[in-house]
């Protein structure tokens, strides 16, 4: 069992690394959106391996299925002219990125490598009760904020349409 888990983790790591490289190296922005979906897929796989199966499904449906597709459709809608803008690849920027990443990554690696993650199972009943009993006010604020943001996005788009 453990061999299969390690093999699955290795495959997911490979998918994530190749997809991340594809995002940077892709000549067309549309292909970068495609590689972003690959990254989302790998992350969802890791979440499932660690026991967050519902979260993995949610991530696949909401993020990969909606957000990444949304970006791709926006590019298709705007056309090739919207993809203009060549990247300024520079080894010094890569070095800076590695340095910044190491600073950000170190605290997480310290926890993850010292205490290897153990697959478990999330009791979503506990999550639901925590949300509705202890965290009802942050949940309410989040829902109101999200609704306001979506209404604003629709209004922004409709406002330009009417003025055209």
């Amino acid at each position, binding site marked *: 069992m453990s061999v299969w888990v*390690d093999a699955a*983790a*290795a495959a997911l*790591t490979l998918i994530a690394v190749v997809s*991340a490289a594809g*995002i*940077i190296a892709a000549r067309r922005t549309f292909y*970068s959106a495609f590689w*972003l979906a690959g*990254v989302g897929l790998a*992350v969802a796989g*890791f979440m499932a*391996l*660690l026991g*967050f199966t519902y*979260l993995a499904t*949610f991530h696949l449906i*909401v*993020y990969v299925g909606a*957000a990444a597709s*949304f*970006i791709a459709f926006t*590019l298709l*809608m*705007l056309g090739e*002219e919207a*993809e*203009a*803008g060549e*990247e*300024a*690849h520079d080894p010094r*920027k890569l070095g*800076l*990125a*590695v340095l*910044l*990443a190491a600073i*950000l*990554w170190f605290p*997480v690696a310290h*926890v*993850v*490598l010292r*205490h*290897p*993650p*153990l697959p478990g*199972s*999330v*009791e979503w009943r*506990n*999550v639901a009760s*925590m949300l509705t009993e202890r965290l009802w006010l942050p949940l309410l604020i989040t829902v109101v904020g999200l609704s306001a*943001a*979506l209404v*604003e*996005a629709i209004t922004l*788009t409709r406002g*330009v349409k009417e003025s055209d």
Partner: protein
Amino acid sequence: MIEGVLIATTIFVLIVAGIYGILVSRNMIRLLICVETLFNAILLSIVAVGASTSRLTSFGLLGLMAIVLTAVEVAVLTAVLVLLYRRRRSLRLEALRELKG
């Protein structure tokens, strides 16, 4: 143990790719894609730390909120980019400088 090393490696690679992409991108949509790559690294970090510290409920909740908020952020940002493209006919970062008052 191997799984922990692989997860840590994946997080590092995604952070490097996200930051490097942000530094070199000249197209706003590609910049958004690189920011989303960073988000995926952060989400994986949340989940990995939750599994390492056996606080699956709390970190599962945090992950759920992060996914929802990011999806909405992508929706709003793409709406703004579509409007920007309609006005400027360009999504190059230089076009943003012209927006200064």
